[in-house]
């Protein structure tokens, strides 16, 4: 009966109830959309930055991350790669051998990062094949280099030009050789675009006199939300002579960016819900003022204060539930639709995004936590607000209430 009474009480003032329900509804929809778009953008940004180069996890010889020199290379062995590969969330494991070298042609010389890769693996890992602008994508056994577009421009290099590389190899030996430019690749990040050079791993190992050695094993994962767990599992399964780093440890500035965006998202959502909370509180104030007499009468005929409090609480729960359920239904539909068919930019905006290496769309996240967070917030708001009627009811005197 309390349920029936609470539900029907809501519809005594239809418009007021509808306005309160609508405020909860719009808060949920706006909050979900805002969070979903911001998180989608962040996930895309992280995916983009991580996917451009570092990947989600890397395994090095212990100490390499702090001192990235060829003295800290690791010996490649099949059992190490197999131990990493057997983790359920791991999709690819690929060795890299990287060091700084001088790249020279004609009159120009530039310092750059030379990365020895297994081209067939990196095609999947960082989608290197999609970044090819000119030339062919190198095979694992080809001789030649793939040079980033910005670096090629600085060195005034074209396809099939010869590039001279000079550097220090393993254990201090001099590394010098010349290679044909087979491919020009383009990266969204100017830092990568102006300073990267790829060559097949075997060729890099020969160049640096580091046979069967690598500076890192780059690991790609199926589910990027499980990176930390996968990192721990890899750590457990391999020798402590290696270190396992996740993308957050490798690119901390991106983590800071995500954190600052999350804080601004939190502030906006907080403001939104504060507005709704004030709206709901105003409704409760009116409700308690209007129904003093009735509450007194119900106490007079034998209804306990606890039952009255439960009835009023149920009324605010119903309002929150209806608004929240409707808001979630609409926002889940919208975010899933936007996720399946993202809004695509056109014209200059599209070009700008694509030049940066991002898809020219507004990405949306459909992470379940976005939806249940709203339910938790609304539940907390309802609970906090219900303190007011509880206090009013606890101090209610049937006779005084009926006199008012």
């Amino acid at each position, binding site marked *: *009966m309390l349920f*029936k*009474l609470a539900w*029907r*009480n809501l*519809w*005594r003032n239809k418009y007021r109830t509808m306005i309160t329900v609508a405020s909860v509804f719009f808060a949920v929809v706006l909050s979900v959309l805002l969070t979903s778009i911001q998180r989608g953008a962040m996930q895309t940004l992280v995916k983009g930055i991580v996917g451009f180069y570092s990947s989600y996890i890397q395994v090095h010889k212990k100490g390499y991350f702090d001192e990235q020199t060829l003295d800290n290379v690791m010996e490649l062995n099949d059992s190490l790669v197999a131990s990493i590969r057997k983790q359920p969330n791991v999709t690819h494991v690929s060795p890299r051998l990287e060091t700084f070298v001088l790249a020279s042609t004609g009159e120009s010389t530039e310092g750059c990062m030379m990365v020895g890769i297994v081209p067939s693996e990196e095609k999947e890992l960082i989608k290197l094949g999609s970044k090819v602008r000119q030339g062919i994508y190198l095979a694992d056994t080809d001789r030649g280099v793939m040079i980033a577009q910005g670096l090629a421009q600085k060195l005034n290099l074209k396809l099939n030009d010869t590039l001279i590389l000079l550097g220090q190899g393993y254990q201090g030996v001099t590394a010098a050789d010349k290679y044909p430019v087979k491919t020009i690749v383009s990266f969204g990040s100017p830092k990568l675009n102006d300073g990267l050079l790829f060559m097949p791993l075997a060729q890099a190992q020969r160049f640096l006199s580091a046979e069967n050695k690598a500076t890192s094993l780059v690991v790609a994962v199926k589910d990027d939300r499980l990176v930390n767990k996968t990192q721990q599992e890899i750590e457990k399964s391999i020798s402590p002579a290696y270190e396992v780093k996740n993308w957050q440890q490798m690119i901390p500035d991106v983590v800071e960016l995500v954190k600052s965006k999350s804080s601004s998202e939190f502030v906006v959502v907080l403001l939104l819900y504060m507005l709704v909370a004030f709206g709901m509180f105003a409704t409760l104030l009116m409700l308690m003022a209007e129904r003093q*007499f*009735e509450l007194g*009468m*119900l*106490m*007079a*005929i*034998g*209804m*306990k*204060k606890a*039952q009255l409090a439960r009835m009023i609480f149920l009324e605010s729960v119903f309002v929150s539930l209806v608004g929240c359920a409707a808001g979630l239904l609409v926002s889940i539909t919208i975010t899933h639709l936007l996720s399946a068919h993202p809004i695509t930019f056109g014209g200059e905006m599209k070009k700008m995004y694509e030049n940066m290496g991002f898809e020219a769309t507004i990405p949306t996240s459909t992470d379940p936590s976005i939806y249940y967070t709203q339910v938790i917030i609304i539940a907390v708001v309802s609970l906090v607000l219900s303190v007011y009627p509880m206090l009013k009811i606890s101090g209610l005197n*049937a*006779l005084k209430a009926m006199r008012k």
Partner: protein
Amino acid sequence: MSNIVIDAINLNKTYNPDTIPVKAIDGVSLQMQRGEFAALVGPSGSGKTTLLNLLGGLDKPDSGSILINGTDITKLSENRLVDYRLHNIGFIFQAYNLVPVLTARENVEFIMLLQNIGKAEREQRVANLLNQVGLGDKMNVRPSQLSGGQQQRVAVARALASKPQFILADEPTANLDSHSASNLLDIMAMLNKEENMTFIFSTHDQRVIERARRVITLVDGKVTSDTGLVKTQPA
């Protein structure tokens, strides 16, 4: 078992004791027996409603005691008093005060739900009570669709639903036209006669006073006259 339902002893109640004291009840003592049909009368401000509120446990006297079937309700805690009211006292208010969102049936049933009475008994008793007050055909109608007289009859049925020791009615006919008032009094008299239900009214209404079998007059918070229980039932 004693036939005395209410035994009020030397009741005193003063409002605003610290500012402008108003002595609402001044040394009132009275006893009510089962089956009485009594009217509390007196001019406005004489203390009728205050006495009714004290007898109903809605207010507490400054001194004195109210024994209902031997239990001193002035000593009960607030929560126990609510429970006591629920199981022992029926209320009829001047402005009907039905729950507007419940139908006539639900309004009557509500009291029994608070008493945790089973569904079958509730349904049977609701039907009987609404038939007794002549509203068997209005069971599923909300108060807003009933006339004042009909609403007051639902209020009578609601007051009876808890099988109370007695019913307190505060000016029950004040808002009714003469036909509805007479009809309501007939029903209450019938319930008094057939079920030996005790009714205590506060009223100005001459029609009620004429039908009452005991008239207690209050002036300035004091009982100035009491006809005592007239044994004969009204015609």
